[in-house]
């Protein structure tokens, strides 16, 4: 995760220098647990790379993978906070569907003139998402109605409104290309392509698609900058710890971690660059992931959410306004559900009544696979993101393999159960 610049506070640090070797061991075990999930993702990817005879890592498939799963991961960021805070939100799929329908109506059907501009519509939709989140959060925070019930109601209500807006079973489209770019677009190559191997020309004088190697240089440059920044911030955090006299994780471990992370990131950058470049939606996702890592690890509001989920009464008696915090968590969820809805609509190029149907379960599963606790107070942003990708890679890989959709669900269910059992087992052992 090239965007995670925050130092990992849980990495088994202790200021007692004389226990050097013990620290190394404990740092290794805690790191293993922390990175176990990422390792699991890599193993799953390699497995499908093998079973799909190399299709999974093909540049075009990687772009598809990102575009298919981005809305799950965007919503999982909000869901992580909801679950850490000790709640649940079942309405996100319906809200996403409703927002997609609203966006399509505004852009295609309703005569709004200048206000049917995709940018204006997107902003309005995000605000509507915030209002939906606030409406649900109000009952949960200030009237103590269980979030399960409020959002179950929301799930029914917004799916209904979505279908009503679209006039029964019909779909509304096509959506403008500039809007579709949110999901299926790629960042422009401002630097210009670099042709390493010229494409083969056939007898008719036309180039053969997929032959040769041309790199999208803007993507390469952005990728290299991100990797350098990752290494730089990691090193700086280490220095700062050492300067204050605190033991950081052992240096070799840090180097291995950084090198492996950078190599993975550069490999993916290269794959994207050899296709059409960085998908716009991946950039959006990357920015949001960094933001949420920062908020949860470094900001007081993040800390308060964890404290509230860990012990709401203690948090309240420590001067934390738990009602307002709950409201904010649900407003955030509403905005991200709306963004998810826009991404779905942009990918399909139209609004359909079933958009986002059932996706709340994928989102919740991603958060739990990522190690969050159903009791609240525990969970990491990176975990939820990796959990989302694990689900996505399984969907994608099994589809390529031609596994029946019914059995895909069975496998996904087993993975969710297995991940949580593994987590509980690990915690009890510790």
């Amino acid at each position, binding site marked *: 995760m090239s965007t995670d610049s925050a130092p990992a506070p849980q990495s088994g640090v202790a*200021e007692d220098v004389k226990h050097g070797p013990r620290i190394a061991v404990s740092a290794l075990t805690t790191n293993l647990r922390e990175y176990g999930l990422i390792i699991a993702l890599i193993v799953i990817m390699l497995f499908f790379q093998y079973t799909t005879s190399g299709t999974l890592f093909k540049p075009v498939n990687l772009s598809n993978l990102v575009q298919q799963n981005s809305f799950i991961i965007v919503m999982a960021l909000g869901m992580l906070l909801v679950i850490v805070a000790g709640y649940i939100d079942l309405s996100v799929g319906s809200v996403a569907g409703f927002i997609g329908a609203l966006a399509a109506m505004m852009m295609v059907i309703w005569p709004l003139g200048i206000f049917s501009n995709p940018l204006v519509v997107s902003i309005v939709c995000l605000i509507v998402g915030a209002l939906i989140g606030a409406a649900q959060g109000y009952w949960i925070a200030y009237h103590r109605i269980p979030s399960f019930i409020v959002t179950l109601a929301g799930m029914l209500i917004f799916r209904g409104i979505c279908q009503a807006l679209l006039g029964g079973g019909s779909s509304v489209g096509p959506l403008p290309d500039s809007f579709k770019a949110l999901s299926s677009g790629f960042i422009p190559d401002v630097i210009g392509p670099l042709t390493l191997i010229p494409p083969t020309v056939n007898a008719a004088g036309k180039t053969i698609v997929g032959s040769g190697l041309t790199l999208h240089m803007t993507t390469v440059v952005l990728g290299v900058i991100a990797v350098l920044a990752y290494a730089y911030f990691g090193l700086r955090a280490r220095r700062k710890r050492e300067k204050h006299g605190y033991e950081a994780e052992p240096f070799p471990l840090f180097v291995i971690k950084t090198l492996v992370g950078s190599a993975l990131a550069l490999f993916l950058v290269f794959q994207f660059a050899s296709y059409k470049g960085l998908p716009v939606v991946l950039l959006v996702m990357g920015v949001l992931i960094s933001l949420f890592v920062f908020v949860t690890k470094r900001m*007081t509001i993040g800390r308060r959410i964890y404290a509230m989920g860990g012990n709401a009464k203690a948090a309240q008696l420590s001067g934390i306004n738990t009602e307002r915090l709950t409201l904010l968590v649900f407003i955030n969820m509403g905005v991200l559900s709306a963004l998810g809805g826009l991404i779905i609509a942009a990918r399909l190029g139209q609004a359909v009544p079933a958009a986002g149907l059932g996706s709340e379960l994928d989102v919740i599963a991603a958060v739990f696979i990522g190690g969050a*606790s159903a009791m609240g107070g525990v969970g990491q942003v990176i975990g939820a993101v990796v959990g989302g990708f694990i689900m996505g890679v399984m969907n994608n890989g099994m589809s390529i393999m031609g596994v029946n959709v019914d059995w895909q669900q069975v496998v996904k269910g087993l993975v969710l159960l297995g991940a949580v059992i593994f987590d509980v087992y690990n915690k009890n052992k510790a």
Partner: protein
Amino acid sequence: MTSTILEMRDITKTFPGVKALSNVNLSVEEGEIHAIVGENGAGKSTLMKVLSGVYPSGTYEGEIVFRGQECHFKGIHDSEHIGIVIIHQELALVPMLSIAENIFLGNEHATYGVIDWNANEKRTSALLRKVGLKEDPKTLITNIGVGKQQLVEIAKALSKEVKLLILDEPTASLSEKDSQALLDLLLEFKRQGMTSILISHKLNEVNRVADKVTVIRDGRTIETLPRKDISEDRIITSMVGRSLDDRYPPREPQIGDVILEVKNWSVYHPIHAERQVIKNINLNVRKGEVVGIAGLMGAGRTEFAMSLFGRSYGRHITGEVSLDGKPIDLSSVSKAVASGIAYVTEDRKTFGLNLIDHIKHNVTLANLSGVSSHGVIDDMREMSVANDYRKKTNIRASSVYQLTGNLSGGNQQKVVLSKWLFADPQVLILDEPTRGIDVGAKYEIYTIIARLAAEGKAIIVISSEMPELLGITDRIYVMNEGRIVGEMPASEASQEKIMRAIVRGEGKAS
């Protein structure tokens, strides 16, 4: 000729770090009402838990002989089987089930799991007649008052063919009238030949019904008084008579002007809106002063403190609070903290700590702005704050990254204290600061309190342990039934004086 029904010999029970009971002896004769008295934490409830098998055989030393047979209970089921039934202070009834369902819960008249409701209700009616409760067996528990619920508990005990009935503080939450009725019922049972053990704080009640009184103090049996020697004075002396040697750090109080002044503070119950829990309390604390609030459980001390601290308890709160002579707004916890008031809860696990997070995050929780700027936490600053307080309060942990859920009670208490010290309050309210922690950690907590007072903070200590209040405070308020019933300088106070104030207050109330 009476015979001994129960004999407990040399019972010793140790918890990690604390010896709760040491060589306790208790002998109960058939057909008598035997009272056990002692301060909160003296070991009465622990003794009864040993007797009823809550602490199974093997987790304590000593022997229990019941009706001539040595007993090794593995759980409550074993003790109930031979006729020892205990009714706990907190009633164990299911509110949304009926009286009949509660009485036969786990013991239903049933064939192959199918309940015979007629048989259950018929037997319930008979039992209710025995305890003098006129209610339909189908009435839900939630719809009857606490006094009647107590009778249901007794009826439940009778349903188990009880030989020895143990009542732990049965009248603690009852009105005067209900208490009288309950005591009459006990006397009636006695006439029918039943043996009972009564644990009570209320010496007038003990005086009225008990045939013998055993006094327990600091986990030891002090003496057993026969009927003719029972008097309140005699019991009080026996209950509290111990020296205050050097269990408390020395202090030289430097007392300044009044910092906190509370006037006409009244609070009503959050659910039972007509019940006034705190009645017109006036109180003040001076700079550098340690003020104690004495009283028995249920006197309203915690309710008072929590209502003061951001209205965390109660409804219809009225009264004025001023700090340094200026009225302050305490309508929310964050306002109270900002005004310079901190409250360290009596229940650190439920209200004080995030047990699934580590020491560092717990210490800074009440004052996150102290380690952050523009909402961004400075990790290094937080780290040094946490380490600083870890040293100051001597928290024993491998590092500040240890989960608070894995710390001992004393160290958990130090984490809660650190959290509030870092919030830098002027007035610190400590509610039962040494409950459930061992003697060594207690001394450390007292030292911290003394140091804070020396730094000029005003401190209120709520405690049920009277020697503790006498040992560490400068002035003591005595509370009972939501009122201040006495105020005395610690130098003139004694446990007898405090007890007298409580007992006298008890007579006046209701």
